[in-house]
């Protein structure tokens, strides 16, 4: 376990309660989906996990150590835990991609030359090396998303927090982004992402924390949490459709497609998921 939230409470000025005794464990090297409906407080949680917001009660631990909120402690914390906001326009502030991505590394105290290496590395990791000199405001939405992630990645965080990473992306854009995240995960970065999309959680997360009204109501393996109809219903969500149809993984469903003829024609291939159906 690398990151832990313990009994977090957060009340926004004006009395809106965002977190109400939230506890959560992030295991090192895993992909964790924080799943919940809009307005459940998912973003607020992410902002606590890197110290942007300070809880009114409770604490956040990194490697078992409760984190403090002094300037130096925050700097050390954020060096290890990166954050990518949902709207990349809230994240990109510099005129060009290169400049923007270099911001984090330079804040770490690296030299310009070192920072430039980090920029190259981060852009490569996201497959957008060709965008380096482009003006930020000329990028497409999908490109902005990836540049925003590169900006966090250039600080070489151990944990990367992503708020609704594929929201607003079309099929191709989402796939490109998830592939890049997959590579990051493979190279050892711990990923925590929020989503309201059960199908995305099912397709991409190893662990799922089900979130409702400021609390985690269920936390466990993706298949386990996403198979719990009642818990999902409590959070106003429905189980992933493919899981309901009897597939245990998205790959299984997709694997069935090629040999499976389109509706109306005959077919004989059977995948394991269907093999259990005695009919």
């Amino acid at each position, binding site marked *: 376990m690398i990151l832990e939230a313990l009994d977090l409470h957060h009340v926004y000025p004006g009395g809106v309660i965002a977190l109400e005794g939230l506890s959560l464990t992030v295991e090192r090297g895993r992909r964790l989906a924080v799943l919940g409906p809009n307005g459940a407080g998912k973003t607020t949680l992410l902002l606590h996990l890197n110290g942007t917001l300070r809880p009114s009660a409770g604490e956040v631990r990194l490697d078992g150590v409760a984190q403090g909120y002094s300037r130096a402690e925050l700097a050390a914390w*954020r060096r290890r835990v990166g954050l990518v906001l949902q709207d990349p326009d809230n994240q990109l*502030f510099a005129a060009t991609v*290169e400049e923007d991505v*270099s*911001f984090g590394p330079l804040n770490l105290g690296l030299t310009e030359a070192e920072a*430039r290496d980090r920029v190259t590395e981060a852009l490569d990791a996201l497959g957008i090396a060709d965008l380096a*000199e482009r*003006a930020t405001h000329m990028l497409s939405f999908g490109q902005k998303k990836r540049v925003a992630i590169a900006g966090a990645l250039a600080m070489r965080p151990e944990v990367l927090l992503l708020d609704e990473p594929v929201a607003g992306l079309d099929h191709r854009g989402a796939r490109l982004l998830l592939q890049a995240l997959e590579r990051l995960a493979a190279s050892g970065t711990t990923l925590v992402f929020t989503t309201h999309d059960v199908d995305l959680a099912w397709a991409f997360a190893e662990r799922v924390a089900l979130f409702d009204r400021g609390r985690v109501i269920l936390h466990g393996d993706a298949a386990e949490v996403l198979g719990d109809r009642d818990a999902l219903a409590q959070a106003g969500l429905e189980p992933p459709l493919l899981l309901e149809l009897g597939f245990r993984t998205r790959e299984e469903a997709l694997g069935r497609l090629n040999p499976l003829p389109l509706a109306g024609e005959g077919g004989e291939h059977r995948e394991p998921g269907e093999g259990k159906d005695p009919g």
Partner: protein
Amino acid sequence: MTLHMDRLAQGGPWRQRALAEKAVLALGLLGLALVLPPWPGAALVLVAAWTSALAAARIPWGDWLRLNAAPLGFVLTGAAAVAVEIGPDGITLAADHGRAALAIVLRASAAASCLLLLAATTPTPDLVQGLRRLGLPVELIEIMLLTWRFIFLLQDAAASIRNAQEARLGWHGRGRSLRSLGLLIAQLLPQAMERARRLEMGMAARGFDGTLRLARPHRRVSAISMISIISLHLVLAGTCLWLA
């Protein structure tokens, strides 16, 4: 959505040239346009600026003409005022038959084309970084760089709000237009401040402590280019004094 001028600067062949070369060329010409006698000085500068823009920087003709037309409204109105006199007989042509007005039009067109040459070949953030090297306070530079980003964010929002208002007949008629514009501005200002708040969160996550640290590519100044640029200035000034 983007600004026309910015698109030219971002996409043009001179984007990769060193800032110092472009700035010395354009601002040098601009200086000459102001200090040399309008005839033939400004005329020579006009030719040099247009040649640089169209032949060297390869700004498309249509774009260049449109850019140069923009300041003309003011220049012609202002010059018209200089060309006339209010006397006892009402409004009459000035005693110099408008020669002063013509000189102003010539000088202003030349000077404007020099500035356009710079603006259409150099993205504004590059110019701002140049100002930093000239010693402007770093706080001011940072505000300018951030302002640049906000311009594009807010421009999109403003265009979108306006489209939404038009769809509900907000801009039909003068009264409604004024009201719609007021509502648009009132919607835009809190949005701008909310953006600022969120951008700050995103920057804090990357270790923002109040100082903007950015790595900028340095483009080397070519000595040959610089020498030719300064020679051009000298030749222009010399020709002008010799003709005059």
